[in-house]
């Protein structure tokens, strides 16, 4: 499954990042590498973007961007 499908409050682990170019590099730089644990914290009031917690910090990203992150639920 992909990160945008993970429900609020659930935790997951990254399997792969399916993005090239700027988005792909940006995700890698922010720590989206296989094995990283992510907890989905909340959606914005208008549902998109989504806020997550990983590697000790909070991050928000749009659902289209989260779609590039393949995860498994923990």
């Amino acid at each position, binding site marked *: 499954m992909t990160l945008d499908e993970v429900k609020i409050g659930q935790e997951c682990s990254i399997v792969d990042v399916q993005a090239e170019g700027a988005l792909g590099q940006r995700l890698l*730089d922010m720590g989206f590498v296989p094995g990283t644990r992510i907890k989905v914290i909340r959606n914005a009031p208008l549902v998109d973007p989504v806020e997550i917690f990983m590697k000790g910090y909070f991050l928000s990203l749009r659902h289209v961007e989260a779609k590039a992150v393949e995860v498994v639920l923990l």
Partner: protein
Amino acid sequence: MNEKAGEILVAVAGQPNSGKSTIFNLLTGARQHVANYPGVTIEKKIGSFYSNGDKVVVVDLPGTYSLTSYTQEERIARDFLLLERPEVVVDIVDASNLERNLYLTFQLIEMGLPVVLDLNMVDVAKRRGFEINIEELSRQLGIPIVPTIGNKGRGKNELRQIIHSTYKNKQRITPLRLDYGGTLEPILKSLEEELSGYPRLMEHYSGRWLAVRLMEGDSEVQRLVQQQSQRGEDILDKVARAREHFIRDHKKSPEKVIAQERYRVAGKIVENCVKRTKPAPKTLTDRIDKVVCNKFFGPIILAATIYGLYQLAIVQGYKLAEYTWPLLAGFRDFIALFLPSQGFISDPILRAMPLGVIDGIIAVLNYIPIFIILFALIAILEDTGYMARMAFILDRVFRYFGLHGHSVLPLILGGVCVGGCAIPGVMACRGIKDERARMATILIVPLMNCMAKIPLYVLLIGMFFAEQKAQMMFFISTITIIIALAVAKILTLTVLRKKESAPFILEMPAYHLPTFSGVMRRCIERVWLFVKKIITVVIIVAAIVYALINYPGLNKERDAYYKNQANQAIQTFYEKMGDNSPYTKVLSGSKLMEFTTYWDGYKKARMGAKTEQAKQTIDQKFYSKNPEFFKVVKRGKYELNGKKIVDKMPKRLRKPTGSYLKQGRSFEGKEGKKLSHQVI
């Protein structure tokens, strides 16, 4: 860089929210100035301090998470490090976010530059239960480390000292060499060997760094290799083949493996050097965000914040401007004293032109109290971390129009509700990382309802829609936003289509209490930048507008016509006054013009006076200046030293003077007024 003898060039690098600017301010104190990196709108702050007799010049690089070539900030930071070759790089690291921050540290080390690690905000890390073994960390990374608490000024001298000693003992430092693993290392090694055959490249860049970047598929580095050597194509071919093979063999791109290895090593180092003394406490940030980003309360708090921003900056700022305006007007009148005196129907160019330009400038400077409050509030919003939440809440709305969550602040400042100003609005666009969205925002901010447009709206509504004033005002302010958003959409689909667009991915930093000095510094910096820019721009524009208004000017017939009218007015005035009036002498010939100026001055002075007391002082002053004129101005009735005086003599004059002199009223400042309306 213009490297002078005895000057040590130091770059301050670090990820966003690591407290980089606080440390930069701590290091350099007041000794700094702001410039722009060539060709871009990114601020370049340069400061300096003295250490052991050497002048250390410090450059603040843009905050970046990495050093790729995908964003403007990263390219600028990287180019500075590569081309200017600073003697020492200070890497500011958020102590409670070590793992992600080390990701950048590794890249700095890889560039072959001497790095000093500034472990910042160690107090926050301790509160969150992290115990960092600094010696061990320094040993594993192979670079010196200084712990600091930027906002409390701790660690300043130690940091300065270590920067200096690192500069002196560069050779003795052997930093960590990151191992990218068995799959990639052999390729990197052979690339490095290959590259060492290119002396021109080796002169400026570290071979290891070039090899890693080439394998990552960095387009800027590819171009660099091509430019710097004739046989660059050979290397690029080799790299392309190596990348292809790698992807085929390992089913993933080299850049993924590289990032993964960096994070793996960072994770291991953190594991070795950081102990958790207590389980992660629920931070204040968590608790605040639960409310601030809540579906229900989030938008309410956001609206309240925007409303507060308006109230404080625009409403209160206007009140402050009432106090500063007389100062500016006084300055204008002071300058006017040195210029040739005004004419009856037109002013000499040496008077009209300078005054026109000054009017233009002070009309803009009048907004300074508003800007001071506005810039201070923006700095507070930025420093607390609320800005990121604003973007988070509103991104969904703005994205649809090709804008960005961060567009909200510029648009508010430009006047989403009635009464903003485009200048701070455009200035706030710096915060938008996505270039396309930034350009689109800059272009639509001037369409908002700025303060200078309000009088026009009021005028139009008064003329055409007197009965539905409130609804029309609401309609105008709403329709402008709709039009602006539509324009943004059209722009991003057409002219701006090819501009770089960046992913949204936005860190939600922990909330911080902003420091007073930090906020004030940023506020003053921006106001000063604005004043410098605006004065030069306004001078030029005001001069051009003056020329456009006055040349070619009236043709001979019209000119004669007006002169004739002026003469007639004077004629009628004297006729009405009659021959035997006691004031014929007082107001004869050139004295009439003198009187008009006098009256004008009196009216202006009285306008500025608020209290009865002040009015009396003005009366006193003008009386002593010219008692005869004063009597005419007061139409024979006036109070002096508490005594009411009624002078019967000018009684016959009362009506005529009033109406005729009004017709022939001074035209002084005519151009100026026109100009100031044009400029804003």
